[in-house]
């Protein structure tokens, strides 16, 4: 046990003394997650700003503003004309909607109800213009319907429309929001897996360095058995993987308040994923002869299998054939398992399938790795 612990501790010490390893294992994944995760989170939280410019302060315009504000896909803000134009020009606002002083006049001369100031017709603008056209049509219909009544009738109808729910929601579904959160959390897990693969395959290739440097041979002629040496390296890399994941989990939790599902499920599953990644690293160390080969093969295998396995994007968006091929890479099963755990679905059958597949990959990688590594 002393020998195993000694190997673990020297590997961890060497790892923490190497700035390159620290950058690859912690800084890079944290940075990538922060950038891409931040984009994803912000895209969920920030809404395009639309300025409203009032040419006249009438009751009708007040009701139309309320009507516009019903669309919560946009952030509506009242501005003066000059400020609104500046905001649009500087692209701080998606567009500015100008409400005329006399709506009735516009309807009568059959001119558009709203004047819109826009800089760039983006996808968001297309969504906005559709909504504005709908609202304008509603306003025109309301105006025409109240022509024969008193002036007060028009704003009253508009107020009635604004307060009407339109659709009765019998059961509130929050599935969509939860799904988005899960996708964002999976993005973090994906980056963690990818960088763990890079980091641990790099770490495992230190066996090659040790062989060249002579420490590997020296260890082989010490009384330490092959089993003790193998366990020492295996557990050292397993610890490195867990340290990396724990640091990333904590960082992401602090930055984006991400959740990881029930830890009772997450920890054992993540442990198996890490073991599988360690096996992958050992396999690389076992099949290559030089560090250059290790770097090249690792890069190709990791990037391609991560693409295939749904690390960069949800696997559901790729064609069915690709989804079938993806079953041959461990990342697919890892991501599927993490999705089950993070979403809280915890479907036992699916989880067991993911676990079994990952276990199979782990055994295969370890077998190839330990067979390839020369204990001489």
């Amino acid at each position, binding site marked *: 046990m002393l020998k195993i612990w000694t190997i673990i501790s020297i590997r961890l010490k060497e790892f923490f003394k190497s700035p390159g390893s620290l950058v690859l294992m912690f800084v890079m994944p944290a940075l990538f997650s922060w950038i891409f995760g931040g984009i994803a989170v912000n895209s969920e939280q920030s809404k395009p700003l639309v300025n409203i410019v009032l040419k006249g302060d009438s009751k009708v315009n007040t009701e139309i503003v309320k009507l516009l504000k019903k669309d919560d896909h946009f952030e509506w803000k009242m501005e003066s004309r000059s400020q609104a134009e500046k905001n649009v020009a500087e692209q701080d606002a998606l567009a500015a909607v100008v409400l005329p002083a006399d709506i009735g006049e516009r309807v009568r001369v059959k001119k558009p109800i709203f004047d819109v100031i826009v800089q760039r017709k983006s996808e968001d603008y297309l969504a906005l213009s559709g909504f504005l056209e709908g609202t304008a049509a509603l306003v025109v219909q309301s105006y025409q319907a109240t022509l024969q009544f008193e002036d007060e009738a028009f704003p009253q109808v508009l107020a009635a429309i604004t307060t009407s729910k339109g659709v009765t929601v019998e059961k509130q579904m929050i599935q969509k929001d939860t799904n988005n959160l899960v996708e964002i959390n999976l993005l973090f897990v994906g980056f963690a897996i990818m960088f763990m693969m890079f980091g641990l395959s790099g770490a495992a290739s230190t066996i090659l360095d040790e062989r060249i440097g002579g*420490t590997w041979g020296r260890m082989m002629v010490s009384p330490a058995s092959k089993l003790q040496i193998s366990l020492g390296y295996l557990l050292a890399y397993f610890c490195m993987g867990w340290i990396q994941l724990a640091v990333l989990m904590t960082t992401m939790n602090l930055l984006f308040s991400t959740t990881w599902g029930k830890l009772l499920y997450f920890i054992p599953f993540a442990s198996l994923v890490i073991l599988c990644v360690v096996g992958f690293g050992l396999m690389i160390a076992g099949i290559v002869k030089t560090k250059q080969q290790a770097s090249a093969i690792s890069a190709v295998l990791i990037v391609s299998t991560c693409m295939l396995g749904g690390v960069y994007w949800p696997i559901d968006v790729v064609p069915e054939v690709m989804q079938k091929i993806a079953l041959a890479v461990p990342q697919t099963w890892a991501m599927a398992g993490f999705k089950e755990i993070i979403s809280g679905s915890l479907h036992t059958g699916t989880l067991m399938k993911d676990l079994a597949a990952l276990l199979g990959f782990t055994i295969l990688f370890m077998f190839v790795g330990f067979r390839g590594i020369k204990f*001489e």
Partner: protein
Amino acid sequence: MSMLTVQDLQKSFGKFEAVKGVSFTVEKGESFGLLGPNGAGKSTMINMITGLYPPTSGEIHMKDIDVIKSPKQAQKWIGVVPQEIALYQSMSARENLRFWGRMYDLSGNSLEKSIDQVLEIIGLTERAKDKVETFSGGMKRRVNIGAAILHKPELLIMDEPTVGIDPQSRNHILETVKRLNSEGMTIIYTSHYMEEVEYLCERIGIVDYGQLIASGTLRELRESIGDHSRIFLTIEKDHLSEEKLTKSLLGFFPEKNFELQDHQVMVFHKEPQLILSDFIQLVTQTGTKITSVNIVEPNLESVFLHLTGRKLRD
């Protein structure tokens, strides 16, 4: 009982036979040198003795332990100084020694005490906390030796431990090895530096092309080649008439114990002083101009030259 017995040791890598049926014994407390040029098979022999490579055939016993069957049992009593600097460069000397000590089951106070003793032996107590990567080549070699003697092995195997270091560090290492041997540690020392082997080893084995071509004490080896000295006569090239000189030499040395190469004549003779003046006179009479005369007493180089027909560093 001998400390080490090697019997008919053979190792092949594919079709290449690196070690061809080598046998020798090393007694307890003895220092045994394996001398041979690079690629002669010394390291392969060492790697088999230390249990790193399994031999193709043959037997290795360390005292009563069968090294081939129970390498881990034997390795407890063996200290190995590999040819490479087998240390963790980003770790300090103390951390390295602690690591290798633990690999030999040392721990706690006894480990720390051993480390302190070893640091003193290798003369690096003051630099114990410095990273190995900041050390000179000689200092690294000393830590390399320190890591092998922490567990006080009965048999210390050193594979060319002084390659590529400065004379000062080499002297320190040789003195350290001498001291360890005088304290009772059995040493196997491989090198292609004859002067080191001559200085350190009581018995010497000469290895060439995977075979042990001779072994014995330095005196025994010298006697095996007739204890002949060598006279080197350097002659001016412009005045050299090879044909005339060879004819005269053959008349003077009918047993053909001379060599004429480039502008140098080398003669093997047991008592060079007796023939030196006649030899010089003979050469001068042929019209050849002599620029220098040198007599070399028999040493390992001449033994090796005599046995293999080539110089050790060829």
